[in-house]
């Protein structure tokens, strides 16, 4: 997504050069949020999720199914898996994340899934069906969404997670408890403050063992325990690759010695950037609006270097300060969140009732750092402008 959006923005800002998008998946760029929602719920074609190529003058070359194996900043080139070498003047790293997977003593693979790609979603869709016993590891957004969708397909769904309260650390305890209550009402079973210690079965999983001694029947085991950044191809270039690609507030890559690289950028999930809005240490944000906004910003930085003075107001721009935006659909309710609720030292129920629709305000030292709720979308949307800038 970040790759395509960067190309689109570069053209929009009249970048005159050649653009080449390199991807290791065989698919053209597509939208991931439906993977845990509509694409699991119904049989859908790739066309339902692919990003439309909106502009006739995108004028971009695509090389797909041939990932980048190694970057060489010294030679200003990347080498692909096939051995092909490509030179660049500017390089945008938008390789995103992959699902983390655990290693168990009996490390069975049959009946085991994770969800990051279109192909992952198809595989889960093919395996599930009414009456299947599903165990999901992790009670984050993806775990909860998949649980809701698969419950809707008639599966029996259990969630095992280390937290006491799903999303409690992100949205606060009362909000998290309410999400759990809603899932339980729908028949989802929670095993919280718990862990899977081993898998049981010969070739395919039949049970999972929990740390508290219980054993759960399981046909389909889905790991939704977070992601790791795809940075291996960047190694060997003295970059800071701890949890993503560290960038400065203009999204330029930062070297281990602290200096910025003027022609290498991080965009989307992979970028660990300082968000000057919240004065935080640099952090990755795995939200959909980040590839969009970071690609626009990066395109401006590139055009600024290539055609100085070409666009008004371009020469002096503040540091990148996006407002993180998140939504999540589970059963018939949807969560909408703006800002950084997890930074709050005070959480207030602003409107509504927990059992129905509601909005929480998240404050840090008295300033609004986030708003989130269920339903009440227009009110939440109105409040986003009150979040600190």
């Amino acid at each position, binding site marked *: 997504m970040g790759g395509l959006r960067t190309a*689109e923005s570069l053209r929009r800002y009249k970048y005159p050069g050649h653009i080449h998008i390199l991807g290791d998946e065989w698919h053209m760029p597509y939208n991931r949020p439906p993977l845990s929602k509509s694409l699991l719920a119904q049989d859908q074609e790739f066309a339902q999720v692919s990003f439309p190529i*909106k502009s006739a003058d995108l004028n971009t070359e695509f090389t797909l199914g041939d990932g980048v194996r190694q970057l060489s900043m010294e030679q200003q080139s990347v080498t692909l898996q096939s051995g092909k070498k490509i030179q660049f003047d500017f390089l945008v790293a938008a390789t995103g994340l992959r699902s983390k997977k655990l290693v168990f003593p009996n490390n069975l693979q049959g009946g085991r899934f994770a969800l990051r790609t279109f192909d992952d979603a198809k595989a889960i869709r093919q395996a599930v069906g009414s009456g299947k016993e599903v165990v999901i590891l992790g009670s984050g957004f993806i775990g909860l969404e998949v649980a809701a969708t698969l419950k809707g397909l008639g599966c029996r769904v259990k969630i095992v997670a280390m937290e006491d309260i799903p999303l409690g650390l992100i949205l606060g305890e009362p909000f998290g408890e309410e999400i759990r209550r809603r899932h339980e009402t729908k028949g989802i079973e929670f095993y919280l403050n718990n862990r899977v210690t081993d898998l049981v079965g010969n070739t395919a999983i039949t049970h999972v063992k929990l740390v508290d001694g219980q054993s759960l029947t399981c046909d389909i085991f889905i790991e939704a325990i977070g992601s790791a950044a795809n940075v291996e191809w960047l190694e060997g270039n003295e970059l800071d690759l701890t949890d993503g690609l560290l960038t400065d507030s203009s999204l330029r890559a930062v070297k281990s010695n602290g200096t910025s690289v003027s022609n290498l950028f991080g965009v989307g999930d992979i970028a660990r950037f300082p968000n000057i809005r919240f004065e935080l240490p640099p952090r990755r944000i795995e939200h959909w609006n980040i590839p*969009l906004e970071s690609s626009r910003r990066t395109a401006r930085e590139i055009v600024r270097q290539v055609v100085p003075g070409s666009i008004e107001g371009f020469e002096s721009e503040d540091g990148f300060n996006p407002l993180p935006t998140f939504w999540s659909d589970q059963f018939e309710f949807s969560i909408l969140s703006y800002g950084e609720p997890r930074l709050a030292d005070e959480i207030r129920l602003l409107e509504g009732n927990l059992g129905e629709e509601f909005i929480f305000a998240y404050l840090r030292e008295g300033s609004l750092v986030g708003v989130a709720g269920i339903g*009440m*979308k*227009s009110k939440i949307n109105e409040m*986003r402008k009150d979040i600190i800038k």
Partner: protein
Amino acid sequence: MITIKVDMDKCQHYGQCVYEAPNIFKLNENDKLEYLASADETERENVKSASDICPMQAIQVFE
């Protein structure tokens, strides 16, 4: 003139588009999306941004 079409089967009424192009999109009192099906050139960039930011990729713009 530009023409705007929202696929209402896809739209989840998040209202992200409202922020990008407030003259064209709004959420009504029932939190449902309402929009103008055509707009003049001055709205072009805003509507394109709205189309980019729509999480469901439900907004089509015809020029």
